[in-house]
């Protein structure tokens, strides 16, 4: 079995809302799996179900080959969960809090190594040594988030589930989280939900896109990205876009469509081309004669656009 997480036909119905509709999700061991989708798509719900916090209405949920509904205790040591709302006791000191979290999740028979060593290791990795003796309630948002992350790691779980770990963090802190995930990658399987798509593109091996409780795409990041390179996108910065230019662009049958966006120096013309052929020279010439061409480039499809395309359909 090399599946860390395996969901088959899982549905979740809240009174009046179908949050998850018959979803399948496979997370392979040792991968970083990005879980993305618009607000209210059902990401947090899925993660809570995997962690055994809420039961699925129907379907099979397996963690490391074990049924979650039957092996609650096993799953709780196996999975480290960072919930959407960090579960922090504001009246406790960071060190005490983490020790408490470790103690209530520790399984001596499964333990790989010493508790104290692991604790020190995590404190250092999450850069919490300096605030060890401070009250959680007095920490800044960034540190609170780190404590909440440390909480998920501190008992040596194999599978780490992070529900929007970078929410509300400054760019440096986000980079820290990314670095931490890259370190964790070596020993853990990570399921990560976030709205920071460029982060996903940087650190994830596989992604799953979910919307309105349905899985839209799942698979290796590169496969999903290349699926969308069936059309190319060119960008041209022009002073102005006249009606005749628009007409001429529309007349070309290889142009699938174009958008006109605001730009500091005029307008940004984004042209989508059918097929893989290279139309750069003819297009740039056309635009240069009709409009006032300032800049012309080919654009690679970013994950963000892939996401928009998929979710729009």
């Amino acid at each position, binding site marked *: 079995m090399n599946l860390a997480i395996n969901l088959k036909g899982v549905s979740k119905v809240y009174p009046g809302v179908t949050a998850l509709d018959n979803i399948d999700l496979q997370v392979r061991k040792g991968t970083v799996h990005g879980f993305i989708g618009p607000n209210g798509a059902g990401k947090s719900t899925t993660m*809570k179900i995997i962690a055994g916090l809420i039961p699925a209405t129907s379907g099979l949920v397996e963690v490391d080959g074990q049924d979650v509904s039957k092996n609650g205790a096993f799953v709780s*040591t196996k999975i480290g969960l960072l919930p959407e709302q960090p*579960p922090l006791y504001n009246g406790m000191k960071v060190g005490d809090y983490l020790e408490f*979290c470790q103690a*209530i999740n520790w399984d001596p028979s499964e333990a790989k190594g010493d508790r104290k060593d692991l604790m020190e290791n995590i404190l250092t990795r999450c850069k919490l040594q300096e605030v060890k003796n401070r009250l959680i309630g007095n920490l800044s948002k960034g540190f609170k988030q780190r404590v909440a992350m440390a909480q998920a790691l501190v008992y040596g779980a194999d599978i780490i589930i992070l529900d929007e770990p970078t929410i509300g963090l400054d760019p440096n802190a986000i980079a820290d989280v990314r670095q931490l995930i890259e370190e964790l990658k070596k020993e853990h399987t990570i399921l990560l939900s976030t709205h920071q798509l460029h982060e996903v593109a940087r650190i994830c091996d596989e992604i799953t896109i979910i919307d309105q409780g349905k899985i839209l795409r799942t698979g290796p990041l590169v496969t999903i990205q290349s699926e969308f390179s069936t059309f190319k996108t060119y960008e041209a910065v022009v002073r102005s876009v006249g009606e005749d230019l628009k007409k001429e662009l529309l007349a070309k049958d290889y142009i699938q469509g174009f958008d006109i966006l605001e730009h500091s120096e005029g307008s940004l013309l984004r042209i989508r081309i059918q097929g893989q052929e290279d139309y750069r020279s003819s297009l740039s010439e056309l635009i240069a004669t009709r409009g006032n061409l300032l800049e012309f480039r080919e654009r690679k499809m970013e994950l963000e656009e892939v996401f928009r395309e998929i979710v729009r359909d």
Partner: protein
Amino acid sequence: MISFSKGIYLLSKKELKDNFLSPMVYILSALFCILMGWLFFNYLIASKELTDQTLTQSILLPIFGNMNFIFLFLAPILTMRSFAEERKLHTLELLLTSRLSHFQIILSKIIANFLTSAFMVLLTIVFPIVLAMSGYSHWSVVISSYVGVLLSILCYISVGCFASSLTENLVVSALLGFCILLSLMLFSLTGNATNNILMAQLFQYLAIPFHFESFVRGGIRSFNIVYMFSFIGFFTYLTHLSLDSRRW
């Protein structure tokens, strides 16, 4: 599974620390002491007139009765945070995804709050000591009354924890706990309304004070103990159900 007692020890230690680090316990203790001291003083003065009664009848019985009654209000306030606050701050998720079972979590909360109440009750130990100085020596009554009060408080706390598990709002939790307790008290009054002796006894049996009185009067029966523990067990089970069903 963490060994049952270790889990309870870990969590109740944390809860107890929380309780004693918050000002609430000290405010409640102070109020409780002032109230009890004032009552004791009054009963003491009054006992001079009642020369035909023993000190047990004129002072101890009413004092313990009042203590029991005051905890009807204090217990829901003490326990209101247990689950309501954890739910509001999302820390309940931490406990529910840990290796602790529901019963471990609930029992830890009950134990921590019970120990906190026991601390408050302990403050009243000066009363029997004062009485002892004037030659009072019915220690068995004192001890059984304390056991009675503590058991009765344990019942209140199990109700309070249940009420707290139903809501996210502290005030609602305290009020709810208080209402449940009060209606349980009123069972004994309902008993008076019926002519059916069996019904009357049934209602009486269901009310906590009826059992509490056995302790104070020094006539403990086994069914008193059975009642108290089945009461606690029942509300622990209800709390378990409420934790199980009200998951986000």
